[in-house]
């Protein structure tokens, strides 16, 4: 007798049937071919003719596979009440729970809408605030090796200014005497009246040391930075402008380098345009000129108006830098007892300076929106508890069909996670709007304010918050629903199960609105 099984198996292989089911079908079809083969032999056919006659039955193997797929695969996809014992993979269970959860949510739109809106507001607010926290507090400053950038202050604690802006002469001494910094640059406020072909415009800018841009590690987008010669009195009639000003006032003129600008009635030559998104110290500054101290200014210890930024040498810690500055400050105290008595020097990380004022406010805000999300979770958990109460019959049927407690918890948690995912998705859209709103409230001196945006980290944060939210508000109702006494519920019989003894206990936790929202229109149905 020919072995038909391999032939049949080959033709059915792409159906990917469950192995036991496939074996049954192959055995049955092989027997059919055996019978046909034997009948042909009895009818006088040779073995070869009988074999060919039997194999003719499989010529329409495409039809066989197609028909079997329709029967077998369709049967596999039929929806059964979750909880019925049936061998399925974890993924299969999850997919089934997901579809069932979607249908349950769709059947009770009032509940779903209220829960999703509550979660979307909570998650959206968290994502929006986190996007600011992420950009301002967590993201490194947009300069080269930003951890090595420090601010250096005069320490006039006795006079009430523990972080005072230094005088030029002190800056010059610090710069020349320190052993710990690779470079040090001074910055002074300045405003410019820009006149010329267009309307006159008042523009904020800074006088800066020539080495500021190399010290930050930022190259101009066009042209060059200042040279040391330009940082000398008389040689400082050059200007670097921001990308924004170049676009706005000069229409992104590619021939801007070398052109003359009239600023405060004097002529300056444009030598560079900084890259897009470059902001220093704040995003309001659009023009930089060399600070070019005069000899008189460089010797002045009475006017405290500079900001000093420095880059530590590789491997130098904040403490080492501070110790070195303490030595210099002590030396200056002795050297200039009139002006520098009890005047110290303080080194702080640039990042701390940039976010210093806003950090507590942001953290408080993050805490507040976190609390809002907790309240939203509590409300949704209440709604879910109410819903679990009116779904007791459904749970009873599932338990009767053999659903385990873990299986019920998984189903309820899947529904919770589904709600959280919907809330998270809509919340993310809300946070897009929220981020734009928040930008308006961030102080201008926070240089990264305009860079606040949703990025991968915010997306990850939203996903994690959504999942945790789903677990948080879903776990209690899932445990409650699965902690189930079949006999008790069955005794309560045809009555509305929410009015049973468990319903009474749960009712205490809920308000009327919550119960009415949670009540499905056709409660108690297991399979729709």
């Amino acid at each position, binding site marked *: 007798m020919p072995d038909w099984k391999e032939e049949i198996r080959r033709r059915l292989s792409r159906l990917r049937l469950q192995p036991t089911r496939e074996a049954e079908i192959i055995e049955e079809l092989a*027997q059919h071919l055996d019978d046909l083969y034997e009948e042909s032999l009895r009818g006088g056919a040779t073995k070869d003719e009988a074999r060919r006659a039997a194999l003719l039955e499989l010529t329409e193997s495409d*039809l066989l596979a197609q028909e079997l797929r329709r029967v077998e695969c369709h049967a596999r996809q039929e929806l059964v009440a979750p909880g019925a014992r049936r061998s399925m993979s974890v993924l299969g269970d999850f997919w089934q729970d997901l579809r069932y959860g979607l249908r349950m949510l769709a059947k009770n739109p009032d509940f779903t809408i209220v829960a999703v809106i509550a979660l979307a507001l909570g998650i959206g607010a968290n994502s929006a605030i986190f996007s600011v926290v992420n950009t301002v507090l967590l993201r490194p400053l947009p300069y080269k090796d930003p951890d090595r950038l420090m601010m250096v202050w005069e320490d006039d604690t006795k006079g009430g200014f523990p972080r005072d802006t230094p005088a030029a002469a002190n800056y010059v001494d610090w710069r020349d005497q320190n052993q710990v910094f690779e470079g040090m640059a001074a910055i002074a406020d300045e405003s410019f009246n820009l006149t010329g072909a267009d309307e006159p415009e008042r523009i904020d800018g800074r006088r800066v040391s020539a080495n500021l841009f190399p010290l930050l590690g930022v190259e101009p987008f066009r042209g060059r930075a200042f040279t040391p010669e330009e940082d000398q009195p008389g040689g400082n009639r050059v200007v670097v402008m921001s990308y924004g000003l170049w676009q706005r006032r000069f229409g992104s003129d590619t021939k801007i380098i070398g052109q003359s600008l009239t600023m405060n009635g004097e002529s300056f030559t444009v030598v560079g345009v900084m890259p897009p998104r470059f902001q220093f110290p704040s995003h309001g500054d659009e023009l930089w000129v060399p600070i070019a101290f005069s000899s008189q200014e460089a010797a002045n210890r009475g006017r405290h108006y500079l900001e000093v930024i420095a880059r530590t040498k590789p491997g130098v810690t904040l403490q080492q830098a501070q110790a070195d500055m303490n030595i210099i400050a002590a030396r200056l105290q002795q050297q200039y007892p009139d002006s520098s008595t009890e005047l110290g020097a303080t080194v702080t990380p640039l990042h701390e300076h940039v976010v210093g004022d806003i950090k507590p406010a942001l953290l408080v805000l993050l805490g507040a929106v976190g609390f809002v999300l907790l309240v939203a979770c509590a409300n949704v958990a209440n709604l879910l508890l109410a819903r679990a109460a009116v779904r007791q019959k459904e749970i009873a049927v599932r338990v009767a069909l053999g659903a385990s407690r873990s299986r019920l918890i998984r189903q309820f948690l899947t529904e919770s996670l589904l709600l959280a995912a919907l809330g998270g998705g809509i919340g993310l859209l809300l946070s897009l709007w929220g981020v734009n709103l928040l930008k308006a409230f961030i102080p201008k001196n926070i240089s990264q304010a305009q860079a606040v945006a949703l990025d991968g980290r915010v997306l990850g944060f939203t996903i994690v918050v959504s999942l945790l939210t789903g677990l948080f508000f879903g776990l209690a109702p899932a445990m409650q629903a699965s902690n189930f006494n079949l006999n008790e519920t069955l005794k309560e019989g045809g009555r509305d199960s929410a009015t049973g003894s468990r319903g009474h206990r749960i009712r205490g936790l809920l308000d009327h609105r919550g119960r009415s929202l949670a009540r499905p229109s056709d409660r108690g149905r297991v399979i729709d």
Partner: protein
Amino acid sequence: MPYIGSHILDRELKKGSAELLILSLVEDQPRHGYDIGSLIEQRSRGALRFNVASLYPLLYRLEKRGWIQGRWVEKAGQRRRRYYRLTPEGKKILVAQRSSWREFVEAVSRITGIEHA
């Protein structure tokens, strides 16, 4: 009679009547697939024939619907075979299908003037 017309009619009739044929054949006693296929061919005097590709998927579909039930049976001296029997649900369906089929045939006869045997 044009070939195409008879071909389509043949296919449609087979499709419409196949379930009724199978349910009828397992009404009195359980039968295995080859037996069912052979009986259809014999009793229709060769006019109707199901091959493997059409017979077994149909059997499985009827089984999924709960109209027939298959069971592996081992008889002495024989290989085990899968026998199909009519379920109570299948019995109800068979009664309904017989009735509607009879009405259909009578209606066609009245229109075409073909006497039925």
